[in-house]
């Protein structure tokens, strides 16, 4: 007896629970891998899975086993030149292996040191944002820009042929035909009834003239019915488009970072997380997010992402150089009418003394009126310097668009990020 059963429609992901349990159990390990990946990857490349490796010994399921040592006999296939009594040098490495001994215990293959698997994109992001609920910001608090988008808005009597609504036009034509034919048909019916009545009369009593007249009338009416056009210009209906103001769906994010000698790689890694968070956040809200990287010491330069994070420069710091450059780029490439503009700046707080008030003026007079939001993080355990103080004036002028925070170590980023956006939300309300 044999039964065939098609189980394919059955639920998939039977192992999902077990998989989750595994991930939960090795959270620490996986988080470490994910953090490494975050540092390695490009900011725009976060939304995919990640291969994760965990040392096999950390996740082994122990059982009683024989260890190396002692005397053992091993039978192997494929003897070529050995004779009984031959002595063979012990293979390099531990004498263990050799196929024997190993019970049913380790079933993940030939003693690989790493247990590797792939996290799905969702799982990856979950680990990236572990401990941080992505702020549930709505679209509203981000000031929307007026951009015109044409949307369908009912029907109109005129338009271009390509926008003809066929069903509606046909329906109009049908109605018109019924309406136009109705009186003719009524007259036709009367004429026919009269003709029949005339013909039913006794031949002697018939009026031939009347009959001819009626016949002519009927013919004329039939012609009129046929003359009613199947479709007429009046019937045509066109889909109408209306201009509707639309929030802009594109944003540009300027990453501004100080790369003077005082910024270590550690500072930059922290900054990278911050930029990453902002990027992911913006990406959730805009269809298109462009990134512009501006690095500066005494002079500012627009660079690629790789160079932005990983090449070193030394020298002093003039922050205003970067702000001037950002302003220039906005003018040239990102007209504020079409783009939502965001600036995220990371620095260790150093600035050339006379420059800080220049920055303040630049921000207040030129940049801030164009921007959606300006977020400044200062990565330093030390006291604030002149830049911070000047920025505080800016923050006072633009409380809803300007945010600044101090970060000491990587762990501070999530809370700070949250803080920056939460504050904004509550003020908006």
């Amino acid at each position: 007896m044999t039964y065939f059963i098609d189980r394919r429609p059955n639920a998939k992901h039977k192992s999902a629970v077990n998989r989750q349990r595994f991930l939960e159990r090795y959270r620490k390990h996986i988080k470490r891998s994910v953090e490494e990946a975050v540092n390695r990857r490009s900011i725009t490349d976060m939304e995919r899975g990640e291969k994760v490796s965990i040392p096999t010994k950390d996740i082994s399921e122990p059982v009683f086993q024989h260890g190396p040592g002692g005397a053992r006999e091993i039978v192997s296939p494929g003897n070529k030149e050995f004779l009984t009594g031959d002595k063979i040098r012990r293979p390099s490495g531990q004498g263990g292996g050799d196929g024997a001994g190993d019970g049913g215990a380790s079933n993940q293959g030939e003693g690989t040191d790493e247990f590797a698997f792939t996290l799905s994109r969702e799982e990856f992001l979950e680990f990236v944002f572990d401990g941080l609920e992505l702020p549930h910001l709505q679209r509203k608090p981000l000031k929307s820009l007026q951009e015109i988008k044409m949307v369908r808005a009912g029907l109109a009597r005129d338009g271009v042929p390509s926008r003809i609504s066929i069903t509606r036009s046909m329906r109009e034509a049908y109605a018109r035909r019924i309406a136009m034919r109705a009186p003719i048909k009524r007259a036709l019916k009367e004429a026919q009834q009269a003709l029949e009545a005339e013909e039913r009369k006794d031949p002697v009593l018939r009026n031939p003239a009347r009959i001819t007249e009626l016949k002519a009338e009927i013919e004329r009416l039939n012609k009129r019915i046929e003359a009613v056009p199947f479709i007429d210009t009046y019937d045509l209906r066109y889909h109408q488009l209306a201009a509707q103001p639309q929030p802009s769906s594109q944003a540009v994010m300027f990453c501004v970072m100080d790369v003077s000698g005082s910024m270590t790689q550690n500072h930059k890694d922290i900054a990278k997380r911050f930029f990453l968070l902002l990027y992911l956040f913006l990406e959730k809200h805009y269809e298109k997010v462009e990134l512009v990287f501006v690095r500066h010491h005494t002079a500012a330069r627009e660079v690629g992402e790789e160079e932005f994070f990983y090449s070193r420069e030394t020298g002093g710091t003039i922050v205003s150089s970067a702000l001037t450059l950002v302003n220039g780029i906005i003018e040239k490439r990102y007209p504020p009418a079409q783009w939502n503009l965001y600036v995220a700046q990371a620095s260790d707080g150093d600035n050339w003394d006379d420059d800080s008030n220049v920055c303040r003026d630049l921000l207040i007079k030129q940049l801030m009126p164009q921007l959606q939001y300006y977020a400044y993080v200062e990565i330093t355990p030390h006291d604030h310097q002149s830049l911070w103080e000047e920025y505080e004036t800016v923050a006072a002028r633009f409380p809803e668009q300007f945010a600044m925070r101090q970060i000491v170590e990587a762990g501070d980023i999530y809370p700070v990020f949250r803080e920056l956006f939460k504050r904004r939300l509550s003020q908006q309300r």
Partner: protein
Amino acid sequence: MTATRQPIATGSDWNFRVLEQFDEELARLADEYRLDTYPNQIEVITTEQMMDAYASVGMPVGYHHWSFGKQFLAVEQAYKRGQMGLAYELVINSNPCIAYLMEENTLMMQVLVMAHACYGHNSFFKGNYLFRTWTDAESIIDYLVFARHYIARCEERHGVQAVEQLLDACHALQNYGVDRYKRPSPISAEEEAKRQEEREAYLQTQVNLLWRTIPDSPEDGEQLPGSLSAQTDDPLGLHSGGRYPPEPQENLLYFIEKNAPLLAPWQREVVRIVRKLAQYFYPQRQTQVMNEGWACFWHYTLMNRLYDDGHVDEGLMLEFLQSHSAVIQQPAFDSPYYNGINPYALGFAIFIDIKRICEAPTDEDRQWFPDIAGSSWRDTLEFAMRNFKDESFIQQFLSPKVIRDHKLFLVVDDDQEEMLEVAAIHNEQGYRKVREALATQYALSVREPNIQVVEAAIRGDRSLTLHHVQDSRRPLARSVYPVIRHLQKLWGFPVHLISMEEGRVTRRYRWPVEETTQDEE
């Protein structure tokens, strides 16, 4: 061979109609060969479902545990990287016998898997003495369902983490959950469920009896009513003096289930579930070579018959032969592909050779196998399949010819010697030694360390003492520490493990580790 070939189907596409026709044909042939099988339940599944099935070690219904998740990830990774062709076969020892066919297999593959699993493995499950003794094909599925529900309920009641830790500990000991020499009572889900509560109470009274001088565990709030007072209430004679247990116990999980002082009733039941499932898999661990060899022998025989009878065409047959030879390939020890002895290859070679010895014995065969040389091959094969396990099967049936064909040789690896020594090769003087050694290599008692409970200090510090009977100075692997830590968690009091060889103590392990142990050593 028939002159007119009328294949049931050609090409690599299949449909249910065609599979049914092939199954009918295979069933007819199996009947002709007197293969006694359970009814087949053939399930067509997707790749992902197959990975699920793999991950749960072939249990169609499993309780939840992270280790299965790990297994799934490993399988998925290997499959995606193309290291592993999935699912040559996955078949479950149950009645009806459940076999999985993957939807993307070719027609040839489906027929091959049907021959291999539904008739090969299936008849082995039904016939082999180990399976007959240790497993109950009728009730396994129900039992798995019971186990899953029970463990899910425990998770609800006691928290996922508590259950997970308990399962971790049980899994570490699951290879020691079998009485090798006693026939177990068959498991029945219905009965389990019905009697489970009853048993919880009963078990606990037994334990309370044994441990009645000790206070209740602080974390175990469930105190059973009814204090046991009378000395006469001691049916097991537990308190008549002497050491406990009176005999060493090799079934560690059973011992824990019945005697661990601090386990709550539900914990005992979980221990029991793991133990029962270990018992279910116990025969499979001991019959790898035979089981796969038997299935390969039959798929080979049945496929050839299908061809001879004209039911398949040359194209399918070529595809089959290619697949078959890949399965029974045995790389040499120095090949980069070598990964131990391939049980499919060895088992298939031995069964084929038994048939040859029966049909066309040489003088050598007559001398080595006087009983079977020239006998009916079908009867001899049946006898071999029914009454042996890997160890005894190899000891009994590994012929000089197979040793020669595989060029088997025996190496002695003694860590006190500088060099390895080739102790025997495929020659007249070596056959018996090679055969003996290979058989031993498959003996569970040699593969796994021999560890037994020797004493539970019921009147002392309640510590548990186990002996590891060491052999050939082979020590325990470092995994011994996490395992005894798990054991200690189950037992609740200190655990000692003593490695002994020929009456001498070679090593002591203890958990928890204390300074005092240093003095003892």
